[in-house]
């Protein structure tokens, strides 16, 4: 009888001690969760953007979906891109038709299956913004945009400060995975939007054929 009581008491003490530990652990976990929550709440969109990996030279592939309010289905196009922050950007579409957009120091140029290369004025600013986003040039983006959190936690919304950009775009969402830019969404005032999924990899130098096009 006495042994059973002692054993029961020991069990009770053991349980109590463990319960305390469990409570402590749970409390710690709760505390930790609370801390974690607080940490999530104090990371602003700019800080989030600053975590974007800087890629001064890179290549990649893209899939673009253009959603027009009047169309039931998006217009899909795919292609590849190369950029060098010092030289410019080449945006080459392969599907559904071939076209090339070249952002050089001298301006923005377009060439497609039906027409020769021609300069496009007025769209250079937007294309430069795209290159700043792709290359992770946050400082350049700070000059043109203010930032706010998007509906998706992995995305940041950029609101244009300048009239020129504000006339063209309502907001631009930059979405990241593992601190790398994974997609861009351009929201227009008309309700149309463009979603671009991107897969980038860093380069040490541009292929000669590409850098020659940017001269």
């Amino acid at each position, binding site marked *: 009888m006495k042994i059973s009581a002692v054993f029961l008491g020991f069990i009770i003490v053991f349980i109590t001690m463990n319960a305390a530990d469990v409570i402590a652990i749970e409390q710690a976990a709760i505390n930790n969760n609370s801390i974690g929550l607080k940490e999530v709440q104090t990371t602003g969109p700019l800080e989030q953007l600053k975590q974007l990996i800087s890629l001064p030279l890179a290549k990649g592939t893209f899939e*673009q979906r*253009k959603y*027009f*309010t*009047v*169309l*039931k*289905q998006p*217009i899909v*196009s795919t292609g590849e891109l190369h950029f060098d922050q010092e030289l410019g950007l080449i*945006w080459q*579409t392969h599907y*559904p*038709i071939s*076209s090339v*957009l070249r952002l050089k*120091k001298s301006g923005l140029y*377009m060439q*497609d*299956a*039906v*027409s020769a290369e021609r*300069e*496009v*004025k*007025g*769209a250079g*600013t*937007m*294309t430069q913004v*795209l290159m700043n986003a792709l290359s992770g040039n946050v400082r350049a983006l700070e000059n043109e945009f203010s930032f706010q959190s998007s509906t998706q936690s992995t995305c940041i919304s950029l609101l244009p*400060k*300048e*009239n*020129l950009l504000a*006339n*063209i*775009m309502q907001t631009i969402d930059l979405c990241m995975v593992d601190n790398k830019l994974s997609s861009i969404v*351009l929201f*227009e*005032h*008309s309700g*149309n939007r*463009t979603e*671009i999924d991107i897969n980038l990899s860093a380069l040490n130098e541009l292929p000669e054929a590409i850098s020659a096009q940017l001269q």
Partner: protein
Amino acid sequence: MRNYNKGLIAYFLQLTLVVLLGVYFLVMGEWHVQSNLLSLLPSSENELVLNKAEQALFKDKEQQVIIALSGKQAIKAYQTMQKQLSALPMVELNEFQLPSLTEISQFYLPYKDNLLSERYLQYINEPAVMTQFITSQLIQMNNPFVSSTIASAPRLSLADYLNTELNLFNNVEIVKGTPSVVIENKRYFISQLNLNIAGFSLKESQKVNHQLLHIIQQIEATYDVSITYSGVVFHTAYASEQAEFEISSFGVLSLIGVIILILSVFRSLKPLLLSTITLSIAVLYGLTGIVIFFEELHLLTLVFAVTLIGIVIDYCFHRFVCDENADSNSNISISINTQQPSSDKVSNNYYIKPSIINKPLVLGFITTVLGYFGLFYSPLALLSQVAVFMIFGLFGGLLTVTMLLPHVKWLSRITVMPWALGFAKKMQQNSILFVQKRNVIYSGLLVVTAGSLLVAPLNFNDDVRLLNSSPQLLLENEAKMADILNYKNNQRIVVIANTIEELLQRQEQVIQQLKQQPTLIIKGIAGLLPSQKKQKLQYQMIKNATKQGVFKQGLATIGLVDAVGDYKALTYQEFTASQLNSLAMLYITKFSTNESDTIKSSTNNFTLWLDVSGDMLNADNLLWLTQQTDMRVFDKAAQVSTSLTSYRQNLFYLLAAAFVLVFFVLLIRYGVQQGVMGLLPIALSSMISLSLSQYFLGQLNIFNLLALLLILALAIDYVIFYQEHGLAPRTCLAIMLSAISSALVFGMLAFSSTPAVQSFGLTVMFGIIAIFILAPLSSRYRHSDVKAETSHLNN
């Protein structure tokens, strides 16, 4: 006494008549002052209309200022500068902006089937290519025109059209709300100002110039920026301030010099006052002549006619020096000469009756008038006006000197100082020596002058830019601004027509012609406002292409339909009523041609201009343009230079004709030998003055020739007086006073920093010196006269 009264009454009667005539024509006639140099050219009706069109299109540019800032603190500096500029009363900030893309797209939607870009036109008959084209537009990452028009115009012709046409006007980028351009990796922030200077007032131009420069200098000192500025106002202000300074400094110096001269010779300022009265009456006559014969006075006429001053002053000095009531005590010559001379032995007499100078004055006047008469029939209005002004003015001066001044009591108190007469005597003696050797002197001068002209022929350069007196800083600013705004080698083509539709069609024809030179970039209103003819044609093409199913596949890929509506033309009225009116005002305007009776075209015309850049117009295009009567390349500098060349050539031939006329008068009056003796100083002094001017200036211009008008008139007077009176000391004295006063008034201009004024002054200076030295050689002086005079002095 009766004669005295009759003469004076007659004078005042005709003076009153002249005044009344002048007032009548001034008040009752449609009279105005003209300053446009091009209006004086003998232009065809078309050229006159084109001149008016250019004035209507570009007159506002003269009131504009552009400022470009660059540097680290450019935006802050720009904002501060704009605030300060907006506070200036005569300055208006020009914040020209195109409406938003959405607004533009909405405006053009009703006309979507009429408006096709050239590229779209190339694909319109090829369904496969059209499908690719539509797809390529749709997949563009950012095409606001596609976005704003796809719902209403899914064929995307309107999107492509607007994208193409508005591309031309997209040179300016907005950075932090500030317009800017980037040239050679440097960003310049641009501020454009409109000045409200009433009637191009010089005083207001100077005031605004100072205010603008003060702000610019302050901004440059406060911020780390570099500022470039350009505008007509800066040049106008500089030139007018320079002119005012020179007028006040040279004018004061000249006046002081003339006053000293008159005081020292006459010990009285009465000659100055009487000269001023005579000159005023002469100018009144000149202006009356202008208002009788012309409906406008060109300001340049007054510039040319300033030579009137020199000749009228010459008349006055002859009168003052030769007055019969001269005080005998102050006249050494008179005290020496105890005998009253007979009137025909003028050359031996120091005392000349005043009535005797009337004859050479009248003869000099007639000869000068004959010389200027040739100008009257010149096809160039300016020279006709100068001729009328001079003839009437000299007539007034002559009448005053011969009919009024002798009756002025003051004249009797004007005496010539003894030292002056003594000096005149010395001049006479030296002149006698020269006359004795005149054949040698003439021969030598003729050889030297002919030789120098062979070695260095007269070289005229009429480029108006050489007459620019703007300082280097302003010229550098203009050149830099042309680089910044990329209009350095731009050319403008002006087109005119009676109706808007005709104008727009002609514009399209010009563009079609210019496209044969692919390097040209053509900017204008053509793209945004095609002619109705072109719109109708393009509408028909879209309709036909739709019927043929060219767009079927392209539209099927997006599942939309784009039916062709009823034709609705975009009109000029609708365009100017829209938010694109600011662009319309920049490139196209209405103008009136009813100011002159010579223009018979309809009262209202329309005009526009095209900006051509990228390359200079080739010979074929230039030839084609010169063959068109309703358009031309706008090049003000070239037009003014051409007009100056025309004037100069005309003036040259007329001066040559004047020389011939003068020679005939001298021949008739004095015979062959004396006629030649009289012509030689006139011709030699003209050639010497031009040769020496070219030596110092490098090349000559019309203002050097203009100086010959004065030299010719003075030379005629000097030669005739020497021919009539020989080397009488008072004649020498009067001519010396005339030469010195003309040198003081006109020759001082040789030191001006304004090239045109300097050219005139330099030639006058050399010409006066030359004619003063050479004119005595023309006198009819015999050896017997020398002996008689020498013995007279020894007695």
